[in-house]
């Protein structure tokens, strides 16, 4: 286990069993698809295995010892998450399956109760499908309107468009990603939240890319909703988090009815459970929530400031090197300080899927396609992009390998 406060990438790598594996006939794995999902340290894998091996049981109801242990471990995770994003109270932390479910919970519960005909929901052109489709469904159902803040060619949001929407006095909700999974753009959420609040409009922050990669403080931000996924921050798949400010959460109708979310059920009426349990119907993903706890420990131990520093460093290096490759177009802000560790690009007339195939020959895992952001792809006027994305265990030597593979692709395609 890593010593507290030391950011030693080689040491970090040793905590990730998968990084020792070879692919494609003996090549070391170079994993550059971290925006899709990150790898898991041994401590996370062990925490899950320990639960199933030693205290597997359902939580919150039974009185036997193992149920108590499981309940404690599950609720400890909630506390850690509250602390990790600096929520005021653990009651504001709801476990979901992922970011997608967290955003849908807001759309179906808060949205259905509050968005009316002719209201507007404002999102942006950089959003992931999970922060677009739920709002399409809601606004179509209600006869409301979905509006997009555009993104400039430089990768920054067109904030004057946003202010114009606010001035319409019809906006009911603003929902925006804090970090684009394609452009890497870190959006001006402070300004967005402050100016929305001046008009009394709540703001949802899609933190799927930001929470794993930089310090995030929901009280300082003053956002009303925040959604993120464990699997993008060293944790297991199948666990997401929805943060909701308490006064808003108290007024929200339940999302899924069933066990665990109730206090009393009678034939024709139900008294709902206290927060946050009212929003966690059914047996949750206990094992993976417990696994997530170990992931938070790991990141806490590194320090999110340090995580961010490492990513700026490696992203800057990658941007420098890739801009020297002939025929490359890089998307998103030029300044590494304004973006996360995500580099999306195209090279000559090589289709991203062909590039990913060539990279794979070298043991390099990158992403190619529309990255669940087809609205943005249309805006950029490309069918697809290639994307390399970094995390705590990536090295500059890996960036060098990636650049070598790009040169190999240019050779094959005679560019």
């Amino acid at each position, binding site marked *: 286990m890593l010593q507290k406060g030391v950011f030693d990438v080689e040491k970090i790598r040793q905590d990730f069993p998968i990084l020792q594996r070879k692919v494609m006939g003996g090549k070391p794995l170079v994993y550059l698809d971290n925006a899709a999902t990150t790898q898991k340290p041994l401590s996370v894998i062990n925490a899950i295995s320990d639960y199933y091996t030693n205290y597997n049981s359902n939580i919150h109801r039974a009185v036997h010892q193992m149920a108590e242990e499981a309940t404690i471990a599950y609720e400890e995770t909630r506390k850690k998450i509250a602390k990790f994003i600096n929520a005021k109270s653990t009651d504001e932390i709801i476990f979901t399956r992922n970011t997608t479910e967290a955003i849908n919970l807001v759309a179906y519960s808060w949205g259905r109760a509050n968005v009316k005909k002719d209201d507007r929901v404002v999102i942006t052109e950089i959003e992931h499908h999970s922060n677009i489709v739920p709002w399409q469904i809601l606004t179509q159902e209600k006869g409301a309107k979905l509006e997009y803040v555009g993104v400039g060619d430089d990768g920054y949001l067109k904030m004057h468009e946003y202010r114009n929407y606010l001035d319409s006095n019809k906006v009911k909700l603003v929902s925006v990603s804090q970090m684009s999974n394609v452009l890497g753009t870190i959006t001006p959420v402070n300004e967005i939240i402050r100016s929305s609040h001046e008009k009394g409009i709540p703001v949802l922050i899609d933190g799927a890319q930001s929470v794993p990669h930089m310090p995030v403080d929901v009280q300082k931000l003053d956002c009303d909703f925040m959604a993120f996924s464990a699997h993008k921050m060293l944790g297991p798949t199948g666990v997401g988090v929805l943060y909701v400010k308490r006064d808003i959460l108290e007024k929200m109708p339940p999302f899924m009815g069933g066990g665990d979310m109730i206090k009393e059920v009678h034939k024709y009426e139900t008294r709902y459970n206290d927060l946050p349990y009212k929003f966690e119907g059914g047996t949750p993903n206990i094992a993976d929530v417990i696994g997530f706890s170990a992931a938070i420990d790991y990141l806490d131990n590194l320090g999110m400031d340090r995580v961010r520093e490492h990513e700026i460093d490696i992203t800057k290096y990658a941007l420098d090197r890739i801009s020297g490759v002939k025929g490359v177009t890089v998307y998103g802000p030029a300044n590494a300080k304004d973006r996360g560790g995500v580099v999306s690009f195209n090279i000559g007339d090589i289709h991203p899927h*062909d590039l990913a195939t060539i990279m794979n020959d070298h043991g390099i895992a990158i992403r190619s*396609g529309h990255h669940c952001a087809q609205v943005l792809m249309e805006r950029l006027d490309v069918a*697809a992009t290639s994307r390399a994305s970094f995390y705590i265990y990536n090295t500059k030597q890996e960036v060098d390998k990636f650049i070598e593979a790009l040169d190999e692709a240019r050779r094959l395609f005679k560019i």
Partner: protein
Amino acid sequence: MSDDIYREIILDHYRNPRNKGKMAEADVSIHDSNPLCGDEIDIHLKVDGDKIKDIKFEGRGCAISQASASMLTEMVMNKPLTSVKDLTKDDILENIGLMNLGPARIKCALLSLKVLKLGMVKYYADRDPDSAKKLQEDSRTL
């Protein structure tokens, strides 16, 4: 491995596709895409008696999908429908010289055959329902 895939002939068909474009008064036009990659192919057919008199494709996507479509049009031009009907996955992979594609990329190579088969389903729908049904089943396996 990529050396075997991105040979001269594949790049040539990718960059200089044969029979690419629109077709006025096609007898059949059909479109399909590969949701995994976003590759898209449209195929237009002119049929004369029992023969494919003309074929054109439109599309965008990776080198494999587009080269494969281009090579397929050359393969079936002026051929009797009865022989085109029975084309298999292996015929296509042999035609483009890529027998060792992985499961993800094989879809790219076979998209154009799938679209062609769906086109023939449309053509046969009233004329020969049994063939249409068989072609429909074929297309599902691609």
